[in-house]
């Protein structure tokens, strides 16, 4: 049994210890917002927060998150009110949308560490997240907008 918290709720799972966190979230817990894209930490679609840090869940064995606190896209806010979600809606970022959970989780982690990122900071933090629809320009704008929303007290 491995025990950890996801979005504030405690879970205990009985799975092989090498099972990637991604599949435990998707298949055992039923949180399918976190996506499989590459299985090698190359695309960022599976990004979640573990104790506040952006982590690629596709290469994180579930044993590594024992007793830790995980936040997935579903847990970012109950009502799309997280500044990054607000900014994503206002800038109309997603196209197919598949990579966006990972993009948003990476952006949220960036902004909590650096509330006023420059374009270079954004490049550095976001270049591990791929998007085949090419939403990068809007993601960049949306991160700046989210920073503004946070500065104006928009964070709940």
């Amino acid at each position: 049994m491995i025990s950890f918290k996801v979005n504030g709720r405690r879970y205990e799972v009985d799975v092989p210890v090498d099972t990637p966190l991604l599949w435990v979230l998707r298949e055992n817990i039923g949180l399918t917002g976190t996506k499989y894209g590459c299985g090698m930490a190359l695309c960022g679609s599976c990004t979640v927060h573990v104790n506040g840090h952006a982590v690629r869940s596709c290469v994180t064995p579930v044993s590594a998150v024992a007793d830790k606190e995980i936040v997935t896209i579903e847990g970012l806010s109950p009502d799309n009110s997280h500044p990054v979600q607000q900014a994503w809606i206002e800038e109309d970022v997603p196209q197919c949308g598949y990579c966006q959970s990972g993009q948003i989780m990476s952006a949220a982690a960036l902004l909590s560490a650096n509330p006023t990122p420059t374009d270079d900071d954004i490049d550095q933090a976001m270049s591990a997240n791929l998007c085949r629809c090419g939403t990068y320009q809007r993601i960049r704008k949306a991160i700046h907008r989210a920073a503004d929303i946070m500065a104006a007290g928009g964070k709940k």
Partner: protein
Amino acid sequence: MKEIVNMSRRDFLKAGTVACGGLILGLYLPHPLPSSAWAAETPYFPGAFLKIESDETITMIVSKSEMGQGVYTSIPMLVAEELECDWRKIRIEPAPVAQIYANPMTGAMVTGGSTSVRSEWERMSKVGAAARMMLIAAAVQQWKVKPATCHAENGKVHSGGKTLTYGQLAESAAKMPVPDQVPLKDPSTYKIVGKPHQRLDTPQKVNGKAVYGCDVTRPGMLIALVARSPVFGGKVGNFDASQAKAVQGVRDVVQIESGVAVVADNFWAAKKGRDALDVDWDEGQWGSLSTDAMLAQYRELAKTPGIPARKDGDPQKALAAASKQVSAEYELPYLAHADMEPLNCVVDPSPDRCEIWVGTQGQTGSRNDAAKVLGIDPEKVQVHTTFLGGGFGRRGNPHSDFVVMGAQVAKAVQKPVKVIWTREDDMKGGWYRPFWFNKLNAGLDANGKVIAWYHTIVGQSIMAGTPMEKMRTKDGIDPASVEGAKELPYEIPNILVDLHSPQNGVPVQWWRSVGHSHTCFAVESFVDELAHAVRKDPYQFRRAMLANHPRHRGVLDLAAQKSGWGKPLPAGHGRGIAMMESYGSFVAQVAEVSMDEPGRLRVHRVVCAVDCGRYVNPSIIEAQMESGIVFGLSAVLRGAITLKKGRVEQSNFHDYRVLRMDRMPVVEVHIVQSKENPGGIGEPGTPPIAPAVTNAIFAVTGERIRRLPIEPTYS
């Protein structure tokens, strides 16, 4: 249920009542291509296109798949413009498979060829307008007033001081005669269409709620991974499943037509089981295939005359008489689509029925191909379309390969099953943009005017071996091989475009912009070479050959002007220009690049001018141009699928590298205001970017790139 035939002599409306009271409305259009896909199908109507219920719910049943192009937003905008309601409250329901939902441009349910808006503008406008007329007619009857006193606005009908909502009117509206004439608005009076609006699907795409094929679960569902031959066309020889079956959670190992399926309780068990599987493959005839050898073969073929696709004047004679000849060869690699969501399919079989959940670009084909595998009537197969985690052509496979694989596994295990492709399965699984070789030869007269153009194309036909081959391929020419080259807009008196279509076992398929993705690179690089050969400005040189092509000229001028063409740039920077018409739209792009140190390329800015005629949502037009440019940039900078000993050498995003945020240029999109018919928008942004970038590299370095991708020449 009422019908009016001959509404405009070619289509007819049909109305009915929903079970709980309300109006449903459909519009049948005849299909341009007779299709056996619909043989023996019972005419389907429940739901049709539009449902207005007494609780004010308005639902659009959308026949196109949402794969990022914004169709779940464009369709409600078009309908609401005529219906006069709050378009943001319209609910979307993916359509089931039925002939009424066929794409009027293809005859089957297909989301592809940049047709989402082009094929639906008129149909959806008429549905919205007819519903409004019937709602007003119901109000007229109830109030006993003259129709002219009534008007519809924001989901209500008004007359004098009286008001009824669409929900209140829906049930009686369903009993009104279906109008036989449905006049549409003058586009100059549009209130919604043509204005920038946020997409309707964004809220569920920022909180993980949007459901893609991979997210679907069914009670008792198993997960399967399939081991397939490392060589295309190979078959299973022998296999030893004992190690695979020993993995905890593996339920079964079954041989299917596509390979060997490991079926398990979850993904990780299926993956470990497949890793432990020992299969001997009978590789078949393609075990020595290599792209290096293919290039040599293609180059030889290009020296011989192909099948002519276009011939104007006498190009051979004109070439011989030219005062200057220029020739060049361009090669482009196989490309994977690499959709962010690897392929997958959920199939839930029961004895004589089957339900499928899949992100597909081709519902009719998916249904019919699955039915064939399962040995049941197509009408017994129900396809539920989910969101697509990228399409780009891959999810419109002509043989529905990923749906067929799902059906094969479900048939073997007789349980609900989700077949998941790993990224490696997806990358190595074939159905690539073909490998292309282009040879061009031009003759110029003493004044530097192009008098002869000879373009030879070598590459696999996408249509060959597909159900569409007979319909689409004419006189040995697959139009998708030569598109963009055959329609060369430059006014040159002597033109020959010919084609060789070798076959070699690598499965090929349409990849965003299809033939234009290679012809634009060849044509627009070569025109640039010709301009430089006679020391002319590449923009003016093109422009001079487009006197009778105002829309081409329009975008070329707009892109040049907005990019500051001809104005000084910092040292080490250069501009390149390119353009193409595709899918009824015209796009020109100017790329600005630099070499900040030897061999280190940066694309700084792309200025894109697009003329797509009338448009629905300019915010989506901009997004699709950005998207097409990024997709094309990934290919021009780094994209290549190569084969050695019959095996694909790439496997994941470390060796099939795509554009990341740190290399994203600034993209500026300028839309031409136009009253022309709507053009496509999903694909036309892709073709010009490759030659725009390589032409810009030439402007900086004097070096001509004739082989894609640019890496490893420049990093």
